């Protein structure tokens, strides 16, 4: 049985910026536990001698020339904004974090 706790799920939800209700947290705690129990078996064959594969095709050094291409217009850039002020995106107050 996995070790996933409701506190852990609440912490993950905070990291992922999802305001889960306590009912959602409880349900996810159970589901996540079952899923994690099931998928944890990857560790059975993931021995130290096996290299990791992050990309399915082994490419390297894919670069773009340093040449300016046209940007979006300001109106295009802001066309989907839920809120704007002038030519900027407007967001609610940011608490002192950084």
């Amino acid at each position, binding site marked *: 049985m996995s070790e996933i706790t409701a506190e852990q799920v609440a912490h993950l939800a905070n990291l*992922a910026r999802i305001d889960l209700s306590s009912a959602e947290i409880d349900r996810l705690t159970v589901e996540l536990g079952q899923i994690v129990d099931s998928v944890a078996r990857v560790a059975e064959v993931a021995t130290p001698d096996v290299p990791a594969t992050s990309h399915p095709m082994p490419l390297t050094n894919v670069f773009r020339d340093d040449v300016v291409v046209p940007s979006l217009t300001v109106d295009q850039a802001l066309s989907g904004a839920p809120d704007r002020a002038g030519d900027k995106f407007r967001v609610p107050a940011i*608490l002192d974090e950084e």
Partner: protein
Amino acid sequence: MTSLINQTAAALAGLLADGSVSSVDVTRAHLDHIDAVEPDVHAFLHVARDAALATAARVDARRAAGEKLGPLAGVPIAIKDVLATHDMPTTSGSKILEGWIPPYDATVVRRIRDADLIPLGKTNMDEFAMGSSTEHSAYGPTHNPWDLNRIPGGSGGGSAAAVAAFEAPLALGSDTGGSIRQPAAVTGSVGVKPTYGGVSRYGAIALASSLDQVGPVTRTVLDAALLHDVIGGHDPLDSTSLTDAWPSMTAAAQAGLADGALKGVRIGVIKELNGAGFQAGVKQRFEETLALLSAAGAIVSEVSAPNFEYAVSAYYLILPAEASSNLARFDSVRFGIRVNPEDGPLTSERVMAATRDAGFGDEVKRRIILGTYALSAGYYDAYYGSAQKVRTLIQRDFAAAFDKVDLLVSPTAPTTAFKFGEKTEDPMAMYLNDITTIPANLAGIPGMSLPMGLAPEDGLPVGLQVMAPARADARLYTFGAAVEQLLEAHWGHTLLSQAPALANIEMFATEGGAV
């Protein structure tokens, strides 16, 4: 009576080219049929009727003016809602993007426009392509044209149902773990996941970047090849795009129609994808197909891929991990909906969290939390790191198998289309449904699904999955076209001609009899 809507794309292209029909006629026929069957099927999230007719008229005018047009010019196409379109809403099946119209086109969308295909609209999908049934769409499920009480597969159930219900001859899909192939299998259509990097991902809303691939959804192998030739090839905007000079997939498909195309082809049956958990009728049709292939001169043998049993686990770590990061941008700042918390101060952080709670569905939240967990400090090595090692082992299994055979085959899905709600309560059961299709995504190799009959017990379509080594997409088309021809000759008709009529629309004379 044969109408415009049940022609293949290749046939329509011929009729358009020789002036027998106009693109406006073809487009209107499809739009009218969409109007008639959509109340039952719900394959589309958006239908661009006026724009489609206007585009068709322009193509007709250019053709009339003697302009040389591409092979699929004037042929209608449906676009999975995962692809950015500058003139149609793009939601990826999610409420969080309701009404969003991107300021740009995905590369594949630009390519189909440049090739003068006629975009009909956007097709339904599981939210952010997370699902195997289209039940996770925020806009209601799509219904399988073969049985409206059943799922059309997922996540690209909308695209598959659209072509299976003759609403469009062609559609675009995306395949992260089977989202093109599995819907094709359960709707009796054809779907191809190209080699990773073969088709641009620029403008495709990312689910899992290292697994996603855009591909064709059609009713025939040749049509898929025609569409693949339009959308494929290098795109500098996608850094994982391959620079290969690809052969013509159309020519490859045509080569499969030649006599003896199957002679001497070495076919590997993957032992691990042919065992327990497969529906009897699925197994039966698979065995019959193998017998037909042998009879046609193919050399069928069994190969083993011992690490496939870890594929689903690895997939359900890699996918949520990448998805949790890809979906972080949905934060109510630059696009999409914004939802304020019910009470408390309106801070940026709280508004983001409230928006993401209200805007994401349960399955999306489940996978984001799982992915956040798999990447978090202290768990990375055991989960994400191990999953990437399994990926290496699966690539090795494929490499060993392709040392012995030219192509690998399996049923595309363990079962035929299941009923709505049958698996939504048990996420793990739903995940296990993808066991057959996931390995190809983990390894980056191309895969195709084409119909191989109806399961005797329920009369529903069964799909054959074919896989080729990376970059050998053409081999799939040659083989697929040959198998399709072999099976249709054996049945005496196409599989989709056996689909039940929808909404009192008379499409085919009913011929009866199981395929």
